[in-house]
């Protein structure tokens, strides 16, 4: 059961990483700021600009 829980947590963490939610939490922690709509928009400006300047795989 514990192994299953651990696996579930890992899958959720992966999904959150793919969704940039983990990166956002790291951004908030690094800058010591609380979550807000404006902060999310500020984060995504930088994050998405960098993300979509790179080639996507075929």
């Amino acid at each position: 059961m514990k192994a299953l829980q651990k696996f579930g947590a890992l899958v959720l963490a992966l999904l959150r990483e793919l969704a940039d939610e983990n990166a956002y939490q790291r951004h908030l922690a690094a800058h010591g700021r609380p979550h807000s709509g404006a902060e999310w928009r500020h984060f995504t400006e930088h994050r998405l600009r960098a993300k979509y300047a790179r080639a996507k795989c075929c």
Partner: protein
Amino acid sequence: MKILAHLVWAAIAVLGAFCLGGIALNHAEPINSLWLVVAAACTYAVGFRFYAKFIAARVMALNDKRATPAERLRDGLDFEPTNKWILFGHHFAAIAGPGPLVGPVLAAQFGYLPGTLWIIIGAVLGGAVQDFVILFASMRRDGKSLGQIAREEVGTVGGFTALVTVLLIMIILLAVIALVVVNALKGSPWGTFTIAATMPIALWMGIYLRWIRPGKVLECSLMGVVLVIASIFGGQWVSESPTWGPWFTFGAMGLSIAVIVYGYFASALPVWLFLAPRDYLCTFIKLGVVLALGVGILFVRPELQLPAFTRFTDGTGPIFAGKIFPFCFITIACGAVSGFHALISSGTTPKMIARESHAYPVGYGSMLMESFVAIMAMIAACMLQPGVYFAVNSPAGVVGATPAAAVATISSWGFPVTAADMATLAKNVGEQTLFYRTGGAPSLALGMAAIFARGGGGDSVLGFWYHFAIMFEALFILTIIAAGTRVGRFMLVDLTAQFSKAAAKKLTGLVGVNVISLVVCAAWGYFLIQGVRDPLGGINSLWPLFGISNQLLASVALCVATTILLKMHGPKFMWITCVPLVWLVAACFTAGWQKIFAPEPNLGFLAHAAQLEQAMRANPSATTAALIFNDRLDAVVTGIFLILVATILVDSLRTWTGILRGTRESRIYEAPFVPSTLQPEEV
């Protein structure tokens, strides 16, 4: 305990060899797909446990005491130590594109055996090695890109050439995958409606994420998945409606123009509004479908109906012309070796590796997973009746312009199929016709639908699953088109900056962005329209062009990798990257040469142009003149690819000879050693 482990690994190796032997030697009757699954899984396991471990320990000397860029340059954004399994999933999601799904389906025209062997062996000895070594090289160089590493380790010529090569590859890639979508959706109101519906869904997701529930990406993506599935049901209703059906029924040319216009707007709109939400949606659906397909194949264990070899090993294939060597090896790129992966391995991933040893499962292991996706695609294609497979994939210019002519031609090849069979199949999946859908996507969708439908529901759910699979492939491809057009824009700016920084700056303004987006769309759009007009179906010329270019990019990556191994150890371990490099160079240059100069008109661009020229003398027409121009243009593009890579090869050989003779400095541009202070709970 150690003896037991040795026995288990020996058993895995023997089982793998037995299954590989089984699929290679059994030509008499259809075989079960489980043979392919077990052969692949065992070979991957042995390759991962022994070959990759040898490279990790002896060649790279991965050292967990050395701080990675994620630790040293940690900024909470790009550089962040990440759990290895999360990074594995992240890297796999980044490298998994439509290539490993479409390539094997097209290569199945040779039969299941050549492609399957190349997917398994190519990945273990070539593709995974390339990804792993480039990931390692980038990790040891603060996460630098392939172009930057090439400039430092090989020379400035290599760096510049790599940039031009990637831009050209991007243009061909976007054109060919757009053609796959066009051929899948032409005359299909169900599919077209479903894909059209994903656009307002993505816009809604963008607004939701920006203003309504900022930051709730998973929640928003879940809503998106539900809406997309609802749109599949909506598509069925639309296709059956006499009023709405015609609104969503387009021919190939109409769809091509729609895709080009889409590419322009999708790349020019703010990323948060369209591209990013669509990409989130696409990533989750992609992972879900790959998982479901894997489970489905294990559950259903379909029999392969296509033979081990077909008669088209002689080079007369209807989908694309050319013999197994070299064309099987360039048609299946991403499932075995893909140059594009080197861009990902020197992109985000090296900046997120917590411990050096994690590069081993992430770099090598992810490629094995990708290779397994290609095996699943091969199974999905080969479980179709051969007659059906060829009826779906062969262009009208080869098999005849009417269903009666097409089935007569295909049956004469020894693959019996009737027009009634095809009509029933089309009806079952909710389509008007399945003939002439060259490109791989519809036949893959048919295979996937059959697997999912056998899981429950039978023929009654075949239409839903077929359109689910088409939606998945098209969503995936259209997201890459939007992102690729955008990246092409940045590359053009980079390239301009090499000559004039002031001109490059102008291109980043509002007018410049729009003009340059138009230029990129026009470039790949031209090749797309060329493919649609091509009487041989377009895939015959464009897919080999894409395959050659992608494998040439892999050659560039392997040149860089070889240079690094040479500088690290002298000639001792050069063979690790040299063996796949020599194979790829041989395959790509042979394919490139044949595509330009082969005397057979269905294979060589110049021969085809000469044949058309002769026909034009008798009956002059603007369409034929355009086809002649396109053939010559394709020959020039192929020639440019070969010249670009020959330049890098010569530059690399010069570097290698200099190092071996001691006339050239063999300095390695690695970041200096810094001891890691990362705690186990941080990894």
